[in-house]
């Protein structure tokens, strides 16, 4: 009985993780297939989708300020550019990138290809790690 239930938990966990991974890969493929306009800036870009009504966005903004080092502005020590997108003011851009939850952060490499998507609040260490993988870390 116990092992049967443990197996159900493990199976549900696996199915959930698998579905999430597949969904994220599909989202990445769709966004890259659309070739968003803001993409190819010749420098890695961190896209940050937010809105005034988003509860977790102020915390995400502070996390991003930590990642940026200086705290404000669009320069990440010259290694990458931070682009903030207010989804209420730019609904078309939000649709283009398939934004479903706020905050969402996306990392684009120098060629404009979306390499990472983070749904929800993402801590600075995770963003820094992802930036390293696209050659924009400290």
């Amino acid at each position: 009985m116990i092992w049967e239930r443990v197996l159900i938990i493990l199976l549900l966990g696996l199915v959930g993780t698998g579905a999430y991974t597949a969904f994220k890969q599909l989202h990445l493929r769709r966004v890259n297939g659309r070739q968003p306009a803001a993409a190819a800036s010749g420098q890695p870009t961190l896209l940050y989708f937010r809105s005034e009504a988003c509860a977790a966005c102020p915390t995400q903004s502070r996390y991003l300020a930590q990642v940026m080092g200086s705290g404000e502005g669009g320069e990440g020590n010259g290694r990458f550019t931070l682009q903030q997108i207010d989804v209420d003011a730019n609904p078309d851009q939000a649709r283009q990138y398939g934004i479903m939850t706020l905050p969402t952060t996306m990392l684009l490499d120098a060629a404009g290809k979306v390499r990472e998507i983070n749904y929800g609040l993402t801590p600075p260490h995770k963003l820094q790690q992802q930036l390293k993988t696209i050659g924009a870390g400290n």
Partner: protein
Amino acid sequence: MDRKVDQSALKVNQAFIIGLLLLAYALDSVWLVAFVGAVMLLGTAVPSLSLFKRTYQHLLKPAGLVKPDIVTDNPEPHRFAQGFGGVVVALAVIALLAGQPLVGWALAGLVVVLAALNLFLGFCAGCFVYYQLNRFGVPGFNHSPLAKS
């Protein structure tokens, strides 16, 4: 007014809720579900008595096992989220005791999924509901999202 929330305390709380509810399902223990629900509701009514958060404050944090992550945020939506979860767990207990295991475990599973969303993806469904109620001017939901500093 300076408003601070320790994200690590919230995450430990969520991890305990998920872990204990999954254990309760594995052991088919209604009483463990009731225990989790009681801790959640008591922690909502009297935050200083939240057992899981006290475990973090008095055991995990001093031992250096979990580092504090204090951010500026409203604590009320998180408390509302926990209270809402506690009510759902209480309903799960009632269903389990009434001989409706499918309904009971489905409700407990819903709390596990919502706590996991918060723990792994940073999406607090209860906070979202709180801020929506605040936007509609519902009495008692007085705090709007904090402005960017």
